[in-house]
């Protein structure tokens, strides 16, 4: 059902002049016209700006200039990435209508590489959620089955790529918000090492966990995008200063002799259809020459608790800036304190309020040690477990989500049930490691199943080699 629109092929054709960026953009706008009403991937489609940017790329090619490695590639930006003069909402009423005075570094880099922004995509409000149902602007539907969720929180970008509205999406991943929707929508999604991609201009959720990454229809495209958006940025003090090797360059290396770790003590079991795909992938990697080794991650099951104390704690602090003073909504009141309380009550949705409350409670006097303090120690144990596992394995293979895409509304009544859908993605964020979702066939109802390749800090090259091998196996 997906119109496959490969970014590498588009960029190559546009650069050599055999395809016009304008035609590429029109084809994507036509698909948006056909299905966007039903799917609701976007908060805002930027048709005029996309046409103008495409014309500029075509003019550059006609003038003999190279527009860059992503020439004419249509991209969809999660609506928590700042775009100068273009509304950026985080899918929250509290920022409705606000236009940032600057571009995120990733937005600047994509434009400089010749990419075309198609629009801003829907998300769970402030990226808090796993289904893109917690948006002030309505739910995003899964292009494979519109009665089901697209996953979240970057569900809009995942759905946009799966539906052929854009060939690249950008998302942010704090506890799985790129990998899980990529898995449920059947596209590639990468959460790089913490610090690999500049977060300047990403509206912060949990600053020790957030990382930007791509959605694409192929592993090669994800490498191409990361080669463009990765790298040091003096505007982000958590950005890694060392240069990254090109990931496109490693894709042709095979996996012979690589050690792929299988976790023998995973906590909650995945559904049988997901487990079956994992076993098929193990067989395929063994066939391709990899060695399969057992690893143990005893603290893995405690990561969920650590995450749901640490992330809300950081969020409660980060979201203090939405106070009705500098941007977005203000509810008038007699004095400033009353204005803060009324503005935040009217502007934030239920899940955001819940997490602000949880985080403020976990940080409050008398509870800090039992909650936040202990969560930071559990985080260390999770990271230590990974360190031990990576002495035996080069990468670790786990499911991305325990289930295929679930029906809309199935988990909205019980926040904890929703949180459990991130059980396989969260530990990676706590450790700061990279992880990628690779689509690997289908499960129940013909819905996509995704598998995660996890690697240690700055292990992107080996992660991409294994991802590419899985992709080849899935295609054969």
């Amino acid at each position: 059902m997906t119109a496959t629109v490969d970014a590498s092929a588009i960029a190559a054709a546009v650069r050599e002049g055999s395809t016009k960026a304008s035609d590429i953009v029109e084809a994507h706008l036509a698909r948006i016209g056909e299905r966007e009403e039903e799917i609701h991937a976007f908060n805002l489609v930027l048709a005029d700006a996309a046409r103008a940017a495409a014309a500029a790329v075509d003019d550059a090619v006609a003038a003999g200039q190279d527009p860059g490695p992503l020439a004419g590639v249509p991209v969809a930006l999660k609506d928590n990435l700042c775009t100068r003069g273009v509304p950026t909402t985080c899918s929250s009423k509290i920022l409705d209508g606000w236009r940032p005075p600057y571009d995120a570094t990733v937005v600047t880099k994509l434009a400089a590489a010749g990419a075309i922004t198609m629009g801003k995509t829907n998300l769970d409000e402030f990226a808090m959620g796993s289904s893109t149902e917690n948006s002030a602007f309505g739910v995003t539907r899964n292009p494979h089955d519109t009665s089901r969720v697209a996953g979240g929180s970057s569900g809009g970008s995942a759905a946009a790529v799966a539906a052929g509205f854009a060939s690249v999406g950008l998302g942010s991943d704090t506890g799985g918000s790129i990998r899980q929707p990529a898995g449920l929508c059947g596209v590639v999604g990468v959460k790089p090492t913490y610090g690999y991609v500049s977060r300047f201009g990403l509206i912060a959720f949990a600053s020790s966990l957030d990382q930007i990454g791509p959605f694409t229809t192929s592993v090669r495209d994800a490498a191409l995008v990361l080669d463009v958006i990765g790298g040091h940025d003096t505007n982000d003090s958590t950005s890694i200063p060392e240069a990254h090797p090109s990931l496109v360059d490693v894709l042709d290396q095979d996996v012979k002799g690589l050690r792929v770790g299988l976790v023998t003590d995973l906590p909650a079991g995945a559904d049988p259809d997901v487990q079956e795909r994992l076993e098929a992938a193990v067989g395929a990697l063994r066939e391709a020459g990899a060695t399969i080794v057992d690893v143990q991650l005893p603290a893995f099951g405690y990561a969920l608790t650590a995450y749901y104390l640490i992330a809300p704690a950081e969020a409660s602090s980060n979201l203090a800036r939405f106070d009705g003073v500098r941007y977005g909504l203000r509810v008038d009141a007699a004095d400033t304190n009353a204005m803060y309380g009324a503005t935040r009550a009217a502007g934030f949705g239920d899940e955001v309020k819940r997490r602000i409350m949880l985080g403020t409670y976990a940080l409050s006097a008398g509870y800090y040690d039992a909650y936040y303090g202990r969560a930071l120690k559990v985080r260390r144990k999770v990271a230590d477990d990974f360190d031990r596992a990576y002495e035996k394995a080069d990468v670790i293979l786990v499911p991305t989500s325990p289930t295929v895409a679930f029906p809309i509304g199935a988990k909205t009544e019980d926040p904890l049930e929703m949180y459990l859908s991130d059980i396989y993605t969260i530990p990676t964020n706590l450790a700061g490691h990279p992880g990628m979702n690779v689509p690997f066939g289908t499960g129940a109802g013909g819905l996509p199943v995704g598998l995660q390749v996890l690697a240690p800090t700055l292990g992107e090259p080996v992660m991409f080699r294994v991802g590419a091998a899985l992709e080849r196996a899935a295609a054969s």
Partner: protein
Amino acid sequence: MPDTPATQISATRITAADVVKVARLARLDLTDEEIGRTTSQLASMLDHFADIDALDLDGVEPMTQPYPLANVFREDVIVDGLDRDEVLAEAPDAAEGRFRVPPIIGAPE
């Protein structure tokens, strides 16, 4: 709130009074209905989170960030900041080149 700091999650029990206090700290006006709902939802989450009470965490170093970079400096040179008019144009209220807010002290009755 406890008289002495709690050291285990299972030793705590969130009450409606805690929720009211935390909402004030977080500058969130909650309705009575929201206070009731938040109290029961947080209580059931915290029950689940008590799973980490089972871990021996003595002597474990807290992990505050995944990629330790310290003292990130740059050259002390003047660079352009954001355009003030562009920033203020997006604010709920502005006057004389500044953000304008309701009275902070001595609010009129």
